């Protein structure tokens, strides 16, 4: 008995040792990957805190002297608040609008039987296939005739042309994966179609709604070409346009540009962190079958 137990214990230790080696290797690989992906961010933050002169004289991995001048310049010398506000309004409105309309469209495409469903899905996808640059001029003429140049709707509506197909496609896929039985059970339990949508389907789709929302938001937040073409002055310029226009004729204010980049990334990163729990929860939620 005892010898058997000892042998078992030995085997267990051996196995544990093997697992430990594996997990060390895994950890090491993770660290390398993390360094690789995080370095540009780190570098941007460091550079944004380094005096302009030092930036070109002897750039070092470790900040020698930390100054907040670039950030101060952003908000005192320049008006960086306005582009941030513009970006928030445009990206936020587009995202909310896309999610509202997209969810309903996706529900119809995933659940209802009607003719031409495949054609509609294909058409929605086709809309995104035009190179953005090719539709800038026609869109400009269209928006001008509608007097929407240099307005929020003038950006939100073009943004929806590429954000909506993304939303509809992603959400259609994820709604299809929610078992139909659940809604049928709700119907039998006494729920109307609307109730089964709001009480069963929607709560289950929240993780994918959040994920899609974040994707759409980031997409709109970073969009440059439309924002540049359809705005006229600083009043309605979004963050990427504002940053691009930092560079003067003779010099590029790298410090300020990087400081602006850090400031522009912050809201997105914060949003992802806030919703992260929900996303992970969604991925691990209980399945239906046992």
């Amino acid at each position, binding site marked *: 008995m005892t010898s058997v137990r000892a042998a078992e214990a030995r085997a267990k230790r051996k196995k544990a040792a093997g697992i430990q080696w594996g997990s060390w290797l895994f950890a090491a690989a993770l660290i390398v990957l993390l360094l690789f992906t995080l370095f540009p961010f780190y570098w941007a933050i460091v550079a944004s805190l380094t005096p302009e002169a030092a930036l070109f004289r002897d750039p070092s991995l470790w900040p020698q002297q930390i100054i907040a001048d670039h950030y101060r310049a952003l908000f005192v010398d320049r008006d960086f608040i306005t582009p941030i506000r513009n970006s928030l309004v445009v990206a936020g409105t587009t995202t909310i609008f896309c999610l509202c309309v997209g969810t309903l469209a996706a529900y119809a495409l995933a659940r209802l039987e009607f003719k031409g469903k495949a054609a509609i899905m294909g058409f929605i996808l086709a809309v995104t296939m035009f190179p953005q640059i090719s539709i800038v001029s026609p869109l400009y003429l269209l928006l001008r005739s509608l007097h929407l140049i240099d307005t929020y709707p003038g950006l939100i509506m073009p943004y929806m042309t590429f954000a909506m197909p993304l939303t509809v496609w992603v959400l259609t896929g994820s709604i299809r994966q929610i078992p139909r*039985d659940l809604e049928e059970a709700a119907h*039998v339990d006494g*729920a109307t179609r609307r109730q089964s949508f709001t009480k069963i389907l929607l709560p289950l789709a929240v993780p994918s709604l959040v994920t899609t929302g974040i994707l759409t938001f980031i997409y709109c937040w970073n969009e440059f070409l439309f924002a540049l073409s359809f705005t006229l002055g600083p009043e309605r310029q979004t963050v990427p346009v504002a940053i691009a226009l930092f560079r003067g004729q003779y010099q590029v204010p790298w410090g300020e540009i990087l400081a602006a980049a850090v400031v522009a990334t912050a809201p997105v990163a914060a949003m992802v962190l806030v919703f992260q729990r929900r996303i992970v929860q969604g991925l691990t*939620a209980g399945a239906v079958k046992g």
Partner: protein
Amino acid sequence: MSRVALEHVDKTYPNGFVAARDLSLEAADGELLVLVGPSGSGKSTVLRLMAGLERVSDGVIRIGERDVTDLPPQQRDIAMVFQNYALYPHMTVRENLGFGLSIRKQPRAIIEDRVRTVAASLGLEALLDRKPAQLSGGQRQRVALGRAIVREPLAFLFDEPLSNLDAQLRVETRVELSRLHRKLGATMVYVTHDQSEALTLGDRIAVLKEGVLQQIASPMKLYEEPANKFVAGFIGSPGMNFFEGVLTRIGTGGVCTFQGADFTIRVPCESGTNGRVILGIRPQHLEITDDSARGDGVVRAEVGVVEPMGNEQIVYVTLPNGERAVAIAPVQPRITAGEKVSIRVRPEGIHIFDAGSGRRMAR
């Protein structure tokens, strides 16, 4: 009164698949009716038609005295237990159980009370605050059952509710369901492909094949007087043996001889039954004797496989012409594979079916 009845119901899918053809059947008030059939027989579709999850192509559905043919599921006041339970994953067991009541805007106190009563009767009290993901298969099954009971519906519909459970739990739950049916006295329609489940649970059983009702009768009647060859083969395990042959009348005394490929036997028969038939005999009515036996209804055979079952042995044999048959024999004497034996067809167990239509002719 809460009978569930289909009257001349047709269901054809847009792709042309016919799931029900001129189907009329009824689960009487308080009855447990089992719908049984192989996959593709339309039994699940029939249940979904009753629930209102599918619309009939033609015909009438009644629940109680009400014509519900055009009513959506939420207005039919029936409860359904799904094969995969379909518990709402984002709700606790308590919320799952109470969903049907809260959606009908029942007062909170009543919901709370009913949920507690049902949870107690199913042994779910300790699990009320868990989510479905944290439950075992058996527990989920009970929650699904509880969700149906809480609402006190007019009728219960079960769609293969035991098929996701392991063998032992399945038998236990089957007994529990039977007890539940007696206690509630409710009308229940139960779909399964498992004939043993059907035989043990059903007050009556409806056998379906390709959307057509083959027979609806009590379990014993179904077993003893199957209406056709399909029902005879589907009900009972191992399945009935069939032998093709010719029936010839002898004189006028209501006696015929069946002449099969390998054996001959005298059988009682009605007038006018002549010609090609199929003789059916259950494994219990094939007696294994030693090789030397000869006579009426005796055929020689070679043993292929023997399955000892503890209280009996299932013997698979091959007749000289290559036909196969199954017999159930007592444990003693032991029979071994490869052995040469004789099997005797016991006349009291014979069923005769028409060779063309498969319809039952006589016993």
